[in-house]
């Protein structure tokens, strides 16, 4: 039997701008290859008026994660050439549950279809219970415009 050894590590991404201001977003890297999975640790200042994770924060995280997946798909990195990139056109989000400060939010995204100028994409945010099972926080569908296309 062949045994395949893998190395997994989390690397911080987007170390400036709004994403960096709200907290540290990390991306999973497996065997040196970036994966379509991010994580983010919730702090007390990420809560909403009901004391649970702010829906605005969750949508901002989703926006960032989908952006990362799209940039990686188009450019192979998170830093597009000047004048290029992608911008959100629509983001539809359903809030499945809430999380509290101290919990870690994980996100995964997947491109449904990409045309010359538009990307259709879906994503979900979740946290993990003590038993390791996923607990859904947000599912989303997005449409993005490819800039410079």
């Amino acid at each position, binding site marked *: 039997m062949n045994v395949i050894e893998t190395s997994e590590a989390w690397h911080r991404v987007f170390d400036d701008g*709004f994403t960096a201001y709200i907290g540290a977003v990390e991306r999973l890297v497996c065997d040196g290859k970036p994966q379509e999975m991010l994580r983010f640790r919730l702090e007390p200042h*990420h809560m909403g008026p009901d004391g649970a994770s702010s829906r605005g924060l969750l949508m901002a995280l989703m926006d960032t994660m989908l952006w990362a997946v799209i940039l990686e798909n188009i450019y192979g990195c998170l830093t597009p050439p000047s004048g290029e990139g992608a*911008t959100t056109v629509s983001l539809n989000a359903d809030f499945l549950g809430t999380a509290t400060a101290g919990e870690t939010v994980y996100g995964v995204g997947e491109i449904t279809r990409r045309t010359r100028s538009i990307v259709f994409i879906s994503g979900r945010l979740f946290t993990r219970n003590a038993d390791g099972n996923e607990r859904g926080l947000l599912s989303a569908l997005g449409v993005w415009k490819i800039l410079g296309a």
Partner: protein
Amino acid sequence: MHAVFADFIGLEIQNGFGRVQIDHRHAGDGPVSHGGVTISLAEATAVSLPALQGFICVSAANQLIGPARREDELVAHATLVRKTRTLAFVYVCVHQKQREILHAQFVFEKGD
């Protein structure tokens, strides 16, 4: 309870009205602000409607019509479209002067 995330990112929210002055904290890709700022402004403005006390947001549909740039002042207005015993529907428009930036529709559910 205090809306700490809205405060943290510099949103001013009260009774269905919201405002943010875009600054360096809100930077996105290039000269435009991060879309998450505008989306957060719309959500926080919807939540602040007095009629929604005891309701929680279960769904949001955001259309980002135009970009916001550094030093823009974004203003948001929330309208309660319909409220039943268990559901509420809210429309939010975010604009910069006469320029529309975002339209959003929210669905709220009566909490336990």
